C-alpha cells in the first residue's frame, strides 16, 4: 500500500462515525435511488446512480472492515484502494455528486450518500487530490484574515462608495452601511461583490434595523473540500467578529452553503456560539409577515418561478419562507414541479460551479433543471443561493432558455422601492402644490 493511499485511509477512518458507518452498511443495492439523482436523470447510466457512486467508497470500506470482504473480496465487491482509485473517486465525489441529498430523501433505507461523498472528499483533500480551484479559494479566504489590516482600508473605501450608491438610490443621505459597529444587533455577512450588500442595506434601512456589515464574506470553500480545519478557520473569522462586536444575531446573505456552514455546522465546531444565525430570507419573510415592509408586487409583473437551493431548502428547512416573500413581491408566481424538498439540484452545487474544467459536466447535470424551468413558462427564475444563480445563468445561456436569474432580495427591493415611490409621490405632489401656493 502506497503512502498516499495509507494517508487517504487514515483520513477516511477519522470520518467514520456512526452515521457514516450506518450509511455504508445499510444499502441493499435496490437501485431505486437512481432517478432521484439529477446526474442520473441527465445521463441514465448505471455508474451515475447514487448507489453506484457510493460503491466507490464501499468497496474499500468492505475490504477493510467486513470479514467476507477480507476473506472473499470478489463475493461482496470489496477491493483494496489504489492511487488510480483515488483519481476515479475524485471525479465522482467532486464532479458527479453535488451533495444535494435528493437520493437520501428517496431511499427506503435513508442512505446518506452525501455523507459518504463528504467522507470521500475529506480523504481526497487530505492527499491533495481535491480540485485545485477549491483549495485555492479556501486558502485565499484564510489568507484574507491573516492579512486583514492590508485589506481593511481598501474594503472600507469600497463600502463607502457603495454607501453613496445606496444614498442615491434611496434619495436619503442618512442611509448608511455600517462596518465594525460594536453592539449592533445584527452582523450581516454578505458575499463577495455589491450584489448581496446593496439590496440588504436597502431593506435594513427600510425597517430601521440595527446592523453592521461583516468584514468577511460568507462563502466557505473549506466546506466544499470537507476539510474541517479549513472550514472551521474560515467560519471562525465571522464567529470571532460577531463575538468582538457583541452582536445578537448573524444574518447571512442569500447563500446556500454558507447557511449550512454557519447555521447547522458551526455550532458543532465552536464551544462558545452565543448567536442566533438566520438567512436574510427568514428575516425578510418575518418583516413581510409583520407588515414592516411596504411592497408593490406590480413592480415584478413577469412570471417568476423559484428554484429551491438544496442547502437552504431540502437540507436547511427554508421551504416556506421564500414563498412567503415571492407571494408578496411578484404578481405571477409559478411553482416548479417538483419543488421544496423534492426539488432537483441545479447541477452546480457543492463547489462544482467554481471548477472551470467541469463546465460541460455541470451543464449536462443541469439538464433536468432546464426541463423544470421550461415547464413553468417563467421569465424570471428566483434563486436564493449565489452558486445556483451562477449555474442557472450558465444553463440559460447554454440551453437558450432566455430567462433572467434573480436573487429573492432583488425582487423584494424592486417591490419595496416601487411601493415607497407610490407613497412618496402623493406627498411630493402635495408639497409641490403647497410650494406653488407660497
Amino acid at each position, binding site marked *: 500500500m502506497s503512502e498516499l493511499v495509507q494517508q487517504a485511509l487514515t483520513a477516511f477512518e477519522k470520518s467514520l*462515525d456512526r452515521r457514516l458507518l450506518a450509511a455504508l*452498511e445499510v444499502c441493499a443495492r435496490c*437501485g431505486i435511488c437512481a432517478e432521484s439523482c439529477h446526474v442520473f436523470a441527465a445521463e441514465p447510466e448505471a455508474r451515475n446512480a447514487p448507489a453506484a457512486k457510493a460503491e466507490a467508497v464501499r468497496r474499500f470500506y468492505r475490504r477493510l472492515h467486513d470479514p*467476507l470482504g477480507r476473506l472473499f473480496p470478489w463475493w*461482496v465487491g470489496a477491493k483494496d484502494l489504489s492511487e488510480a482509485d483515488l483519481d476515479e473517486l475524485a471525479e465522482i465525489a467532486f464532479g458527479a455528486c453535488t451533495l444535494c441529498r435528493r437520493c437520501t430523501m428517496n431511499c427506503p433505507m*435513508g442512505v446518506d450518500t452525501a455523507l459518504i461523498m463528504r467522507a470521500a472528499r475529506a480523504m481526497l483533500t487530505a492527499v491533495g487530490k481535491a480540485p485545485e480551484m477549491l483549495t485555492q479559494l479556501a486558502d485565499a479566504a484564510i489568507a484574507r484574515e491573516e492579512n486583514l489590516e492590508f485589506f481593511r482600508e481598501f474594503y472600507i473605501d469600497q463600502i463607502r462608495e457603495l454607501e453613496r450608491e445606496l444614498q442615491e438610490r434611496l434619495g436619503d443621505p442618512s442611509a448608511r452601511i455600517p462596518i465594525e459597529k460594536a453592539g449592533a444587533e445584527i452582523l450581516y455577512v454578505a458575499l463577495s461583490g455589491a450584489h448581496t450588500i446593496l439590496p440588504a442595506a436597502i431593506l435594513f434601512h427600510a425597517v430601521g434595523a440595527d446592523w453592521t456589515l461583516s468584514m468577511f464574506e460568507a462563502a466557505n470553500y473549506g466546506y466544499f473540500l470537507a476539510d474541517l480545519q479549513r472550514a472551521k478557520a474560515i467560519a471562525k473569522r465571522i464567529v470571532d467578529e460577531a463575538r468582538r462586536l457583541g452582536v445578537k444575531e448573524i444574518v447571512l446573505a442569500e447563500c446556500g452553503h454558507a447557511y449550512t456552514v454557519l447555521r*447547522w455546522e458551526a455550532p*458543532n465546531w465552536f464551544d462558545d456560539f452565543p448567536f442566533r444565525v438566520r438567512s436574510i430570507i427568514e428575516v425578510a419573510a418575518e418583516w413581510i409577515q409583520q407588515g414592516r415592509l411596504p411592497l408593490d408586487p406590480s413592480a415584478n409583473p413577469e412570471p417568476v418561478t423559484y428554484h429551491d437551493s438544496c442547502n437552504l431548502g431540502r437540507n436547511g428547512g427554508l*421551504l416556506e419562507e421564500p414563498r412567503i416573500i415571492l407571494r408578496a413581491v411578484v404578481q405571477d408566481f409559478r411553482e416548479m414541479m417538483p419543488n421544496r424538498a423534492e426539488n432537483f439540484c441545479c447541477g452546480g452545487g457543492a463547489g462544482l460551479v467554481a471548477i472551470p474544467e467541469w463546465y460541460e459536466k455541470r451543464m449536462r447535470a443541469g439538464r433536468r433543471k432546464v426541463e423544470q424551468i421550461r415547464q413553468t413558462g417563467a421569465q424570471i427564475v428566483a434563486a436564493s443561493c449565489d452558486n445556483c444563480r451562477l449555474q442557472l445563468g450558465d444553463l440559460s445561456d447554454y440551453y437558450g432558455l432566455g430567462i433572467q436569474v434573480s436573487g429573492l432580495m432583488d425582487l423584494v427591493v424592486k417591490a419595496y422601492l416601487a411601493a415607497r415611490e407610490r407613497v412618496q409621490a402623493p406627498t411630493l405632489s402635495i408639497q409641490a402644490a403647497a410650494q406653488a401656493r407660497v
Partner: protein
Amino acid sequence: MSATALWGWIVLIALGLSMVGTGWRLHGLLARPYRPDRAQPRGRGWRGVLYAFTWGMMPWAKESTRHHFLPYVRGVLFHIGIFATLATLAVSTWRSALPDWIAAAGLALTGIGAVGGLIGILMRIFDERLRALSYPDDYASVVLVTLWQAAGVAFWADPQWTATFYGLSALTLIAIPLTKIRHCIYFFFSRFFFGLFYGRRRVLG
C-alpha cells in the same frame, strides 16, 4: 433424539451465532463516535424519526417509490414474508397445537414473501441496472431468504418439511450478520439518523 429435535438444536445454535454476530456488528457501530447536532433546531427531531419509520415508509411518500410503485410493494411484501417466516420459526414447535387460521395465515404470508423474493431474484438477474449494482452476495442473499420463505410455506403445508425449514432457518440466521442481509441491523439506525436530521431541520415530520 429425533431428527426434528436435532434440527431444533441446530437452529438454536445458529440463533446463538447470529446473535453473537449481530452483537459484534452493533458493537462495531456503537464504538464509533456519535456526533450530535448542537445547532438550535428549527423543528422537532422526534417528529422526523416518527415520520421516518411510519408515513415516510409508505409507497406514496417518496418520488422514487411512487415511480417504482410495484417493485417497492414487492419489496414490502417480501419483507413482510420474512417477518412471517421468523414468526413461523418461533411457533414451529407448537405447530400441531395451533389453530387452523394461524396455519392458513402463516402459509399465505410466507407464500407472498416467497413470491416476492422470486420476483426479486428475477429482477436482479434481468434488470440491467440492478445487475450492474449486484455482487454474488446480493444474489446469494436473496436466494437464501427466498428459499427459507419457501420452506416456511412447505412447513405450513406439510410438517414433513420441518427439517428442511429448520436447516434453511439455521443457514439464514448465520447469514444475517455476515452477508448483505445485515442491512436489517443498520436499517433502524439509518432511518433514525435520517428522521432526526430532517426533523430537526423541519423538512419532514
